[in-house]
């Protein structure tokens, strides 16, 4: 945490970058860390909280061990992405945005990952799985369980 803090000069334009690094490192923004950022930059806590809830990259609760992104960009959408996310909801018992009670999986839909030739696209822990189908997704999920 100290290293991340020291990376940035304490100027307002660095708040976002710092929060992004915290999010990447800890998988979420804890109340403690949000307080620390507000204190370090000398800005009201409400402002950091506002930023943390406005931008989609930030999460106030811990995410699961495996993060599943279903690309919901237009190209993937017309190629059947909604069917894939419906199937994942069914298999995992969580809606997009949710985390399984055992903290194994977080399911998210993302706007576009820019690999439209591979659509419908599912990314698990940063690994791209292209040309996905409702049938293939179940097998794929087994590899991560």
């Amino acid at each position, binding site marked *: 945490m100290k290293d991340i803090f020291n990376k940035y000069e304490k100027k307002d334009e660095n708040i976002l970058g710092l929060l992004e690094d915290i999010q990447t490192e800890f998988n979420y923004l804890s109340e403690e860390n949000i307080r620390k950022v507000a204190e370090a930059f000398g800005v009201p806590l409400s402002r950091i909280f506002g930023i943390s809830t406005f931008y989609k990259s930030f999460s106030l609760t811990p995410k699961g061990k495996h993060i599943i992104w279903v690309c919901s960009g*237009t190209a993937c959408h017309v190629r059947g992405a909604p069917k894939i996310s419906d199937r994942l909801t069914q298999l995992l018992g969580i809606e997009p945005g949710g985390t399984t009670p055992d903290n194994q999986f977080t399911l998210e839909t993302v706007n576009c990952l820019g690999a*439209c030739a591979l659509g419908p696209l599912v990314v698990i822990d940063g690994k791209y799985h292209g040309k996905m189908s409702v049938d293939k997704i179940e097998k794929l999920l087994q590899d991560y369980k």
Partner: protein
Amino acid sequence: MNNTKKLASISEFENLANRCISAKSKDIAVISVCCGTGCTASGALDVLARLREEIEKRKLDTTTDTLFTGCHGFCERGPLVVIRNLKGNKNIFYQQVKPEDVAEIISETVLTGKIIGRLLYIDPTTKNKIISEEELPFYKNQKRLLFGSNGKIDPTSIEYYIAIGGYSALGKVLTSMTPQRVIEEIKKSGLRGRGGAGFPTGRKWESCRKAVGDSPNSGTLHTTGYVICNADEGDPGAFMDRSLLEGNPHSVLEGMIIGAYTIGVKLGYIYVRNEYPLAVKHFSIALQQAREHGLLGENILGTDLSFDIKINRGAGAFVCGESSALRASIEGRVGEPSVKYIHATEKGLYNMPTVLNNVKTWASVPLIINNGADWFSSIGTEKSKGTMIFSLVGKINNTGLVEVPMGITLREMIYNIGGGIPGGKKFKAVQTGGPSGGCIPEKLLDLPVDYEALTQAGSMMGSGGMIVMDEDTCMVEVARYFLAFTQDESCGKCTPCREGTKHMLKILTNITKGKGREGDIELLEEIGNMVKDTALCALGNSAPNPALTTIKYFRDEYESHINQKKCPAKVCKSLIKYSVITDKCNGCHLCFVKCPEKAITGTAKKPHIIIREKCVKCGICFDVCKQDAIKIE
């Protein structure tokens, strides 16, 4: 070549350029591997690693080189490998290359000059195998000014960029052009903002230059003004800005330095989506190299010009692509747009004069300086000059990035370059301009692609997303999809956008669920036009476009959803039913095994039945059936 001595004058730069050119024009074969996001996702890095191993193993490093490059554009066929400068051949284009193919590429093609037939692209109409990149229909019909170098340079090495004439435009500007002269040249070229709005770039620069005043380039970093590169490419289905930053970051950087010289500012920002880690990485490397070479920082190339650039990463808010929201975000605030009584060129970032341009706009600048305004304005239509990069995606055979002269028709793009619709399906619509754009029907396919023509059709140029839809796409559902997107991304500051999009989405969702009522279409139009006229920023002003254009061109689809409770494209779950065609079903039992809900019964070799009460309409049976015995009605 690892000379990182700071260049203290233009002549030192010219010497370096000559050394780079001769170093890169050695007479050896170069195997370039596309390592853009699409190809990387299909295994390009493994292919590159195997190539390097094989070359080392066979001790071919004096005659053969490998090249890590950015996106070549033809994502559909990735991983792409292009072999250039091989004796006796122009270049050889291999597609869908796997690591297993590498040994053969070296032993057959590189060592004996034989071409491997199975790795070539086959023209779907003529069935001919095509050897060189230039002859592919996909590339042949393009005009790749901004994008053409991507396949030929290593984006992480400044020498490659300098070897293809990079930074010579900056040299020209610093030695022989006054800022006023640069502004005249850009104005004359007719370059317009490539972020979508199409504002004339030269005029924007001119008014900012005036606001900066008589003492440009004086004082400290924060006392003159700013240039910003908008790389917050948020439109779903659009990835050309990213590919340019990943594949040729120095071209964007050079454009920004020329901009800083012309406008007279000392600091620039680039605002990049956080979802684009490779673009951030390559641009950071480019900045570092430019600083080491004296092309960025104090006294650039020994002149009075001082300029530097900071990278700010976005955090997943679509509205931050809007200029005033983007500025708020750089300033470390919530990314809400503000009212523009005063132009940003006068009071923008931190209330200082600011020029904000899109990635493609900046990258066009060095081209115009090097080749002249007349050359640039000879390409395109009367009011839209130069080329535009589109990402051609969706239900199209050749998914990828295409760069075309302005004024080309949609039909040429979709059929000649894109190769038409897969699976013999019928074209229905093309959506341009992302969530802010509209859907253009078949009868308007001969429309020329320029700012005015697209706006007139109810859509817009946008930043260049082009999503093709076929007969299996439900236009009401597409409108619902886009409204769900804009509603979710609406920042909530102004009422028309916050409330209007919410109600439009509610009505559209009801229609797709079979709960549409008479009068819904008119209500959508009324709310849509109201939001268009009264919302605070461009996000809200354009959010109703997908709904309004689909009503305009596909009203019959809305009517059959509302009146007959039928979805003509058979997409909307609540309005369709799956059933077995008894005559076709051979009782293979596959659907029975695969159905997650156990909603299919039947004994082997006898026609099966779907139990409607149990069916959740997931579509697995339809996908797995080899007899086409499942129908949707």
